């Protein structure tokens, strides 16, 4: 009885893994088509031209395929055993890149190797996932313990700070999404809610004067203090919450005005319509929205997007690749891409839950939230829901580091979900 059940489960897992590989392949290939379109030049129609992005990406796709097969062939315990070494090596390279890296657009985050450049930050997410999974899955570790949470946070904070030092705010932001992994492992849901409320309050402070918000909070606090006067403990809690949020607001205001760079502030103000700047900070977003918006229901067709073809959207093969989808394939094409991503992420979570080993499960969650983080930030930026934050769309955007790191990230998980006979 139990045998049959087990067998069926394995078959299902096998099928789901195959689905992940199919979605991965679809995204990579469709991504390549869009990179080709974004870089299309009437004067050079060759598909394989290694001096151009689309040509280079073919090499990266080949390399990614090689890595994927390699991962599926080696022992699934390999990565759990070598988690810490991988983490340490990548952290060291993140430090090294600060000193020997090549500076690109103000960020010092690339190793230049011949004509190819490698971005260790992309691999940082993979390494952090391994280390975090390894640490939290150890038999003597209980997430309920305060010490555990501190150490887990440190594992995340280290790459976060190193990447921030490289001036790559976008990539650093992704590490914040590990809070979803913590939530799954036992972090109180209230913290997520408080986090969301704080984020809402801070966002609001960009639009409404901060002293008005503080006054409102004070009124609410007074009301509750009066209402709950019989319970002294609650009163103190409310007052504490008020003081905390007020000081957070003020320090956020300080960080916003003094720590953030002008171009960050510009991007945020453009998003909230406080600043209209068609030629400067707002240009990318406007052109991106025009590209997507002009796609209509079914899009203008392959190589027919004028925004795409004539370079109105900067960074179109990397951070703004979604514009090409929106313009050339319209609502249909872009919705399918969104659905594929959500389906992929949801399936990874389902699959993670079915894992027997905590390492596989936690690692699966890490994979899901990292892909989700990139997906959310990248597309929200392209459709004007978030300020411009330059991070790639997984599997899709042009760039070897990104494609390789996401391929490794995903296939290590796929490898964890079963043995090779069932998935290949």
């Amino acid at each position, binding site marked *: 009885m139990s045998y049959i059940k087990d067998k069926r489960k394995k078959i299902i897992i096998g099928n789901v893994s195959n689905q992940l590989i199919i979605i991965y392949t679809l995204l990579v290939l469709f991504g390549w088509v869009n990179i080709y379109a974004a870089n299309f030049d009437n004067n050079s129609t060759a598909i394989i031209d290694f001096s151009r992005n689309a040509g280079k990406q073919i090499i990266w796709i080949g390399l990614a395929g090689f890595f994927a097969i390699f991962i599926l062939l080696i022992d699934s315990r390999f990565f759990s055993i070598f988690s810490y070494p991988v983490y340490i090596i990548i952290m060291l390279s993140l430090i090294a890149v600060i000193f020997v890296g090549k500076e690109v657009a103000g960020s010092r985050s690339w190793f230049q190797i011949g004509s190819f450049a490698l971005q260790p930050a992309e691999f940082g997410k993979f390494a952090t996932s391994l280390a975090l999974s390894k640490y939290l899955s150890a038999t003597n570790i209980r997430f309920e313990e305060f010490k555990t949470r501190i150490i887990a946070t440190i594992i995340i904070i280290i790459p976060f700070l190193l990447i921030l030092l490289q001036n790559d705010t976008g990539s650093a932001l992704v590490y914040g999404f590990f809070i979803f992994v913590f939530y*799954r492992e036992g972090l109180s849901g209230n913290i997520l809610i408080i986090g969301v409320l704080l984020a809402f309050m801070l966002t609001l402070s960009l639009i409404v004067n901060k002293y008005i918000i503080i006054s409102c909070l004070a009124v609410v606090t007074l009301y509750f203090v009066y209402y709950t006067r019989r319970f002294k403990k609650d009163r103190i809690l409310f007052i504490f919450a008020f003081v905390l949020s007020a000081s957070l607001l003020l320090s956020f205001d300080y960080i916003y005005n003094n720590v953030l760079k002008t171009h960050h502030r510009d991007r945020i103000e453009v998003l909230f319509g406080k600043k209209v700047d068609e030629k400067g900070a707002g240009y990318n977003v406007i052109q991106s929205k025009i590209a997507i*918006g002009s796609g209509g229901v079914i899009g203008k067709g392959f190589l027919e997007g004028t925004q795409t073809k004539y370079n109105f959207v900067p960074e179109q093969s990397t951070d703004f690749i979604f514009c090409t989808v929106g313009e050339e394939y319209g609502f249909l094409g872009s919705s399918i891409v*969104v659905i594929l991503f959500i389906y992929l992420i949801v399936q990874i979570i389902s699959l993670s839950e079915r894992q027997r080993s905590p390492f596989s499960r936690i690692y699966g969650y890490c994979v899901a939230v990292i892909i989700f983080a990139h997906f*959310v930030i990248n597309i*929200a930026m392209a459709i004007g829901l978030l300020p411009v934050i330059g991070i790639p769309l997984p599997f899709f955007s042009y760039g070897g580091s990104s494609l390789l790191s996401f391929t490794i990230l995903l296939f290590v998980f796929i490898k964890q979900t079963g043995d090779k006979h069932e998935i290949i």
Partner: protein
Amino acid sequence: MKVNYEERANVLQVIFIIIGIIFVIRLFFLQIIDSSYKNSANNNVLRYTTDYPGRGLIYDRNNELMVCNEAAYDLMIIPKDLKKDFDTLSFCSMINIDINDFRTRLDKAKKFSRYKGSVFEAQISKEDYASIQEKMYKYKGFYFRLRTIRKYIKPIAAHVFGYIGEVNQSIIDKDNDKYYKAGDYVGIAGIEKQYEQELRGSKGLKILMADALNRDKGSYKNGEYDIAPVSGSNLYSGLDYALQEYGEKLMENKRGSVVAIDPSTGEILALISVPSYDPNLLVGRTRTKNYKLLQDDPNKPLFNRALKAKYPPGSTFKLINALIGLQERAITFSTTYPCSRGFHYGGLNVGCHEHNSPLDLEGSIIHSCNAYYCKAFGAILNKYKTDRDGYIVWRNYVTKFGFGNKFNSDIPNHSSGFVPKAEYYDKRYGKNGWKWLTVISLAIGQGELGITPLQLANMSAIIANRGYYITPHLIKKIGNKVPNKEYLVKHYTGISKIYFDKVADAMYNVVEGGTGMGGKINGISVCGKTGTAQNPHGKDHSIFVAFAPKDNPKISISVFVENAGFGATWAVPIASLMIEKYLNDTVLRKDLEDRMFKPIP
């Protein structure tokens, strides 16, 4: 306590799915609900450029080209392409403008668009273009756009052709078809204005694409949405270009007008008003400047005397009174009136020159007797119950000759002249306060009468046709079709042909042995009538109307020479030379010709 967190997987999945749904909804709004992005994308990439058609050409009656188009170049500017080290001074001296002018134009262009081209200096001639083009590489941000400008082959007939100019806001506002855009050209006067619709053709549209750096990316969808320009129709005028030229030469250094009409068709052969100007002055970028100069010229070269000047017709009008008198049976061929150096009635005296007396009708025309026509005019008006009734009948005949009315014709902006209505005199003298004697000046073509040279030429055509006229017109064909059915209609005067025959005979004798003897041409039977219009401002105007040959006439003509004294001295020879030129193609009377070329002493 062991807690199971498995259900949190669902919480996270739901959150992620909700985010996905938010994205799809957002995409739905961006891509399907809001259509403004399509326009923005088109605005980014599409460059609409007007493809200007060639303006129609104008030919004369012998298919000789009179008006054509010539390449000219608009100097265009794209403000964003101007470099920091732009040498404004040398640029200004190259195109001959001052530096403040440069700045205003640059500001204007910037206001229009920093990325799109706008006209900086319009219609630079071929010659200037050649010298500027060589240096253009130094001035990034400027380029040339080919346009055409009008070219008038000979420096004549300015009043006939008129001119074209840039449309102004009021033309754009009044244009119901929304055809004109700022920067377009439109006919402002003359044939150019009258036949604007036909001459302009229709503009084409080219849709080009440009990338983010405004570099040309070729035509949009292989020109699928382009509209080809349609050239304007060619006009075939009834004008005789050579005759026009000859007439203008004869009239040089004089003031006045010559109008020649082919009586059988109503086609205008020559329409001359002097002083005139070279029509090429009002072309291209010097137009505004030159227009001002012409406008300020005390000789008023822009004033078209042939169509707008209202003269008293003088003795030429006696022909009309003779015809009306005959038709009204107030006089007959054999009616004679005595003349004692004028017409004297009570205290009223209308003088006349020395001639045989009494004269019959023919004699009165040959010798242009004033007394005869005063009496004949009296006889016409006295036939009716009151002189006023008689006057109304008389005036009705006069208007049938085209006097006091405008022609339903393509002749631009011509005056209706003035033939007073009975009410005019009622107002002046009281309803019963005037008689035939009050308005006796009308008998000899003086008084309140205002007749244009065109109307007088048409009168001559009516006599040539022995009773009718075809509306005088300038253009006989547009492409292959007749522009106006009106040009096929004969307008009768209501006076019998036999009377016209008689008057024509008399006119023949005017030239053979009367006041118009200077107009005689060997081998051509010329009929004519002299006139002298009294002019309160100086010497009388010399007038002559004529047609030839007497039978089957080919040309009828009116000549006005201002302040030239008696009709016979200047107007008669000029008309005669015109007739000779038109009918014989060459003029044999070189002495006469030379005398006429000279200015009036």
